[in-house]
């Protein structure tokens, strides 16, 4: 797959010819990433460090007052994992906008939802599972999409004619999930396989300080069931994509300074137990967290302005820093049969925004399994450097995995990743 896609990057010089037109715009980023895994893996190849480069480029052009064209190719080259070296067309879409409607035809990326830890209602696009581990990287989806904007709310209709399989790390990929997913042996419940036409409708509306969304989806579930298969001495996982009905609600409300968030879905299908999944919680922000230290003369302002202030003092003296607390409860009615690790878990997150010239921010999150299972710790931080670059660090630590069947395979897969990207 990777080899085929990479040849398609020849599309870029062609697009460059288009860029001389008026109302056209290029943007994107190219980045280098370095990963380090402190433990050796259970995978065959015992590498601990890896390098990777990626480019995410978007070209936009107005074709008329009502019609615009967007193309957004993505490509990644990975030193170790052939499956992670991949390319995708995230967007290749014509958008037509009327007074109270919008039509999108082509390949597009759509986001639904309000929560931070899991994105239950976000069913349109497949997850690009090799590109990031947080489920927020998405593969482009072929679609015809009509949106109607009415006083009673926004109505969206989707026809999704071609299904995209989830990407998985290869035999040399990390984090290694304990067995290789054999994507060549993919199975579908539908006899139409990836050509089953999926459909979705969504209604959404804002009421004062509340945003509400309701949707219905019928089609191929984006999450595959992974079926273990004995291959000689080793086990391979066969992805099977089943058909499902999903009804879901997402709600977000601002109640005083509390941001309340809920996503809930009901899923059912011939090969699926009827069940409910839920993410619910809140976010609360302390604005200027440490401003009180100087206001109440706990630290003198003179000390804070001293030229020789060290890093720690500069941090304590930052009266502009905001701290957001995010708490979310994750639940799946199927409990241990959920097929994912979040059957009864709690996310506690701390979002730091330094509000400095470099827009430094950090998100520290701890997901604790409430049934005695694993603790997952994640830290994502980034800072702008040299005006057009951003330096990021991401770490995931998997702890207490022994009694957690869903995360046991990750016991040696904790990692830290550094990323330097150039934006234009």
């Amino acid at each position, binding site marked *: 797959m990777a080899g085929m896609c990479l040849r398609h990057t020849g599309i870029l010089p062609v697009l460059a010819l288009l860029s001389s037109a008026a109302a056209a*715009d290029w943007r994107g980023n190219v980045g280098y990433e370095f990963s380090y895994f402190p433990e050796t893996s259970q995978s065959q190849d015992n590498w601990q460090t890896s390098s990777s480069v990626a480019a995410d480029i978007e070209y936009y052009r107005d074709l008329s007052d009502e019609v615009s064209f967007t193309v957004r190719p993505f490509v990644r080259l990975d030193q170790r994992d052939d499956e992670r070296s991949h390319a995708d067309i995230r967007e290749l879409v014509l958008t037509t906008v009327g007074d109270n409607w919008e039509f999108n035809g082509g390949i597009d990326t759509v986001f639904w939802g309000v929560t931070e830890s899991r994105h239950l209602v976000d069913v349109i696009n497949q997850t690009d599972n090799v590109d990031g581990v947080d489920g927020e990287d998405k593969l482009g989806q072929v679609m015809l999409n009509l949106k109607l*904007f009415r006083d009673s709310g926004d109505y969206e209709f989707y026809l999704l004619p071609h299904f995209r399989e989830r990407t998985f790390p290869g035999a040399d990929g990390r984090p290694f999930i304990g067995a290789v997913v054999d994507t060549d042996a993919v199975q579908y419940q539908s006899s139409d396989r990836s050509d089953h036409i999926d459909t979705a409708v969504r209604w959404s509306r804002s009421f004062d300080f509340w945003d509400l969304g309701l949707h219905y989806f019928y089609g191929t579930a984006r999450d595959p069931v992974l079926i273990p298969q004995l291959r000689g001495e080793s086990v391979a996982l066969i992805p099977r994509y089943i058909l499902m009905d999903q009804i879901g609600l997402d709600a977000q409300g601002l109640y005083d300074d509390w941001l309340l968030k809920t996503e809930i879905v009901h899923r059912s299908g011939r090969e699926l137990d009827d069940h409910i999944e839920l993410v619910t919680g809140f976010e609360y922000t302390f604005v*200027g967290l440490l401003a009180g230290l100087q206001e109440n003369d706990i630290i003198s302002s003179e000390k804070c302005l001293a030229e020789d202030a060290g890093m720690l003092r500069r941090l304590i003296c930052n009266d502009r820093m905001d701290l957001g607390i995010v708490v979310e409860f994750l639940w799946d009615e199927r409990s241990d049969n959920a097929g994912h690790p979040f059957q009864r878990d709690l996310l506690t997150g701390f979002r730091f925004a330094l509000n400095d*010239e*470099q*827009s430094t921010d950090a998100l520290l999150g701890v997901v604790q399994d409430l049934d005695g299972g694993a603790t997952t710790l994640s830290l994502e931080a980034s800072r702008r450097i040299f*005006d057009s*670059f951003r330096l990021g660090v991401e770490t995931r630590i998997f702890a207490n995995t022994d009694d957690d069947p869903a995360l046991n395979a990750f016991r040696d897969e904790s990692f830290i990743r550094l990323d330097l990207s150039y*934006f234009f």
Partner: protein
Amino acid sequence: MMKLTGLSAFTLLAATMVMPFAANAETAEEKGLAIAIESDKRDQGYVDSTSDMRMILRNRAGKESTRTMRALSLEVEGDGDKSLSVFDEPADVKGTASLTWAHSTKPDEQWLYLPALKRVKRISSKNKSGPFMGSEFAFEDIGSQEVDKYSYKYLGDEVIDGADAFIVERIPLDKNSGYKKQVSWIEKERYIMLKVDYYDRKNALLKTLVPSEYEQYLDKFWRPLRMEMTNHQSGKSTTLTFANYKFQTGLKDADFNKNALKRMR
């Protein structure tokens, strides 16, 4: 996550730099309030406006960094205005856009669009005292300046840079404001704001804003093309300049909702 909310309301700040004087007020408080009400009235009828903005941040050592953005605003009768803006620089936030519905008697509503995730997020307006994109402008300095959000007091007259001016003090009513008070100098002849001193919660002088290079549009609306904000405590400063001001461009209510926010380029 970056704080970007309310940025589009820069143009609303520019609008309120025009502060006419109303005579015959009995007490200092009534006189101050009358000025604010008259000022609000004088800016009615701009309908909508668009502009390009450039912000230069300067730290104590003189090191500079730049932000550029475009802003649209729409006048709303009987309530606060709606505004939308999108960043062009720094490149890592290019395409990030914000939508603000200002209200006179309840908190403003704000949404932020993150292009990398194609996600629209609602955000609390509690962060009004926080800095806007690392600059010396706070969100509340650039947000819609509704009359009902302050109490006022007329302090007297003064000649500033050769121009006769009124001095008006205003006190934020919102407990989340970062200021104890603001003191402004309003030129008598053109009724434009020449200077504002901001006092922190300890009532110490924190910042001074000096708007300049005023231009008149549609023979009525005065807008400063340059604003200089200096922080006296940190030694940092921010220069904000405006270009390509356009008025009554035909923007509609539908250009200021969440779907328009996603389409903003």
